[in-house]
């Protein structure tokens, strides 16, 4: 393509993007098509990738195609393998795409579609994509070192310690909140519970099939597993309509919580090949297929958004979670905009597969842009619902009341009309007994997704199947995070306790496996139990806590990145990571302050504890007060740790910039690639 033609194309993309963003930002009082969001997103990512990431690659990082990557220098056919860039891209995307970009945007939709959309676009282009890209590149230049190792070597022992604490905290809180989402999606739902219960024997069967009958045929096994899951969805309908069977799968939230805790412990202690690996494959298969289907469904049907651009709840009085637009929209949506967890993936498997340094741009920046698009699809799925329906599903009984009439009256009084009869009809259509008080985002997303799918295939007749397909997809997805996360957390605790008493660090010693599995499951199980027993639905306190810990990990990652950029002598470009870092510091420190000290008991942990203490004593009050104080203490510890790493990093930057310290870049020395003349893939 000639240069004028290229310029014309990019000008057209910029105009289309600007026009779409203006449309979603300025339209008030009338419904808009979801396609505006899609076009705005695609154009923003395209421009961000083409221009901003190219600038970072050339000026800030000076990517060098002639420098051998660890995949080349340390190639062993096992961990370090030179891999085609598209293959690494797919692998990386599959690893970073989790339930976060689906759940966070659905919860943040209580503010309207506009805040979430703008944050996802700006956050990804200037924050999340940049973080993933630079951390991936820095890990590649350090033989695939992990974030914790880089923090230790670049910032100091404190940096490594804080990164470790941030990672273990995020894992524990993430697992607790993920389990809570599954509990809220499956409580009193025999159909959903039956389907998910069946995925366990299906995974075991897949494990045996893969190991004994068709060794290594993972794709084939995953297709078979997927067909069995579809059968299980159909079987769920039968179970829910057969009272003698359905009663065994109609479970309360506490029962489901106990079952999940037992499952987590078993998954952590069982052989990987039997349950964890096949389930992981099945989940990935369903995940990739469903995301592709959802994207196609949205583009083909171009649904209308019924949620207004902004709702009255930007003032902080929202029923889904309490807290004002700033800072809570920005911690509620972490994955999809910027997620610290990605830095673990970008400094994990991916850097060991990169064939050329220049490919880190496409893999790091590009894959995050794709995940951000998934978050935009979640915004759309939530906002195609009538707002009254959205709030009826997502509002906890503690806010809108237990009875359908009370809930609908409260929601209608906010200006979002909905009736008990409408909700009953919707519950019937999706094959549930009720959709009230289904906090956590997953059921609302499932209803939205079923809504979109049922307009393309099967009409209303298949609404229930689509809803349970979506619930199965989310729950399977989340349970995979749960069992893999429990194992990763167990290893982290083993690594740490191994310094205290050597046998506890031995990963093959069964008592150590059992003790450490119990510790990690006990930790996230406590948060889960706390959420289940919380009259405000649990999500109100736990999701912001998860968002804060995730963003704090991103803060650690950006501190590491900024330190390295300054040490590289590129201080004039440090704004590339300093700007998102400053924003995250403002967001997370404000959110933490509000969560601990806000006088509104729905927002502040301590004021909620005081309110409970002042009220007449009821059963369980002391426990709720303890939980509030524990949450406040966890938030405070996290924020203090991150403040320490920030101060340590900033002091280091100042010393280097003032010439009082000699910067030492701890990169692996340059080795020229043997593939310099290889045709670029």
């Amino acid at each position, binding site marked *: 393509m000639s240069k004028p033609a290229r310029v014309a194309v990019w000008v057209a993309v910029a105009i289309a993007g600007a026009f779409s963003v203006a449309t979603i930002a300025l339209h008030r009082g009338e419904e808009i098509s979801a396609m505006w969001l899609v076009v705005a997103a695609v154009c923003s990512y395209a421009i961000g990738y083409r221009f901003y990431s190219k600038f970072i690659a050339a000026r800030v990082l000076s990517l060098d195609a002639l420098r051998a990557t660890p995949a080349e220098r340390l190639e062993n056919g*096992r961990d370090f393998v030179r891999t085609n860039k598209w293959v690494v891209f*797919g692998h990386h995307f599959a*690893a970073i795409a989790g*339930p976060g970009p689906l759940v966070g945007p659905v919860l943040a939709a209580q503010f309207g579609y506009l805040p979430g959309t703008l944050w996802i676009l700006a956050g990804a282009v200037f924050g999340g994509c940049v973080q993933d890209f630079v951390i991936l590149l820095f890990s590649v230049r350090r033989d695939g070192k992990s974030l914790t190792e880089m923090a230790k070597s670049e910032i100091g022992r404190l940096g490594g310690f804080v990164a470790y604490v941030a990672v273990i905290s995020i894992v524990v809180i993430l697992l607790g909140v993920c389990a809570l989402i599954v509990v809220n999606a499956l409580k009193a739902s025999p159909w959903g519970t039956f389907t998910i219960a069946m995925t366990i024997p299906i995974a075991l069967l897949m494990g045996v099939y893969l190991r004994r009958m068709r*060794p290594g045929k993972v794709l084939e096994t995953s297709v078979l597993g997927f067909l069995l899951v579809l059968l299980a969805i159909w079987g769920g309908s039968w179970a829910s309509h057969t009272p003698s069977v359905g009663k065994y799968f109609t479970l309360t939230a506490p029962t489901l919580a106990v079952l999940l805790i037992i499952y987590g412990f078993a998954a952590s202690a069982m052989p990987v090949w039997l349950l964890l690996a096949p389930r992981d494959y099945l989940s990935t298969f369903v995940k990739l297929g469903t995301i592709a289907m959802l994207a196609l469904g949205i583009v083909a049907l171009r649904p209308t958004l019924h949620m207004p651009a902004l709702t009255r709840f930007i003032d902080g009085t929202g029923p889904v979670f309490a807290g004002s637009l700033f800072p809570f929209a920005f911690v509620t949506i972490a994955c999809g905009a910027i997620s610290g967890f990605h830095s673990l993936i970008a400094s994990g*498997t991916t850097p060991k597969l990169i064939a050329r340094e220049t490919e880190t741009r496409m893999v790091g920046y590009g894959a995050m842009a794709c995940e951000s698009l998934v978050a935009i699809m979640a915004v759309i799925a939530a906002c195609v619902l009538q707002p009254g329906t959205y709030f009826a599903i997502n509002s906890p009984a503690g806010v809108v009341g237990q009875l359908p009439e009370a809930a609908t009256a409260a929601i209608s009084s906010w200006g979002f009309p909905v009736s008990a009869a409408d909700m009953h009809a919707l519950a019937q259509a999706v094959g549930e007994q009720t959709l009230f008080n289904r906090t956590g985002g997953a059921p609302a997303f499932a209803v939205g997704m079923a809504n979109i799918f049922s307009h393309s295939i099967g009409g209303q007749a298949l609404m229930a199947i689509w809803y349970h397909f979506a619930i199965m997809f989310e729950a399977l997805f989340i349970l995979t995070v749960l069992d893999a996360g429990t194992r990763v957390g167990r290893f982290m605790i083993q690594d740490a306790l191994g310094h205290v008493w050597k046998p506890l660090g031995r990963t093959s010693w069964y008592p150590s496996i059992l003790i450490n599995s119990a510790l990690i499951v006990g930790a996230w199980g406590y948060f889960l139990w706390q959420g289940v027993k919380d009259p405000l639905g649990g999500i109100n306190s736990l999701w912001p806590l998860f968002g804060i810990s995730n963003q704090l990990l991103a803060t650690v990652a950006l501190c590491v990145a900024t330190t390295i950029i300054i040490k590289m002598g590129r201080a004039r470009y440090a704004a590339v990571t300093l700007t998102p870092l400053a924003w995250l510091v403002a967001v997370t420190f404000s959110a933490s302050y509000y969560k601990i000290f806000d006088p509104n008991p729905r927002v502040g942990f301590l004021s909620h504890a005081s309110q409970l203490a002042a009220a007449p004593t009821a059963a369980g009050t002391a426990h709720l007060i303890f939980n509030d104080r524990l949450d406040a203490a966890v938030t405070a510890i996290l924020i203090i740790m991150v403040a320490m790493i920030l101060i340590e990093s900033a002091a280091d930057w100042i010393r280097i910039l003032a010439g009082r310290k000699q910067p030492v870049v701890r990169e692996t020395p340059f080795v020229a690639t043997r593939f310099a003349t290889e045709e670029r893939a």
Partner: protein
Amino acid sequence: MKNLLARICSSNRRAWTILGAVLREIFDESAYARFLERRQLTTSPDAYAEFLAESRQQRERRPRCC
């Protein structure tokens, strides 16, 4: 026109090949193939069990993102 059609067909074929390679990598089929090649083995339940044992540590410690 013929040239354009041929180019489209070729791009299409390449896209499917890459998609297949991506899926094989994501689902560890490529890793197993590399293992067989490295160890000069043919596929069998025993070889697969060995592959699983070898990659156990890496697989167990692989985080799944939120």
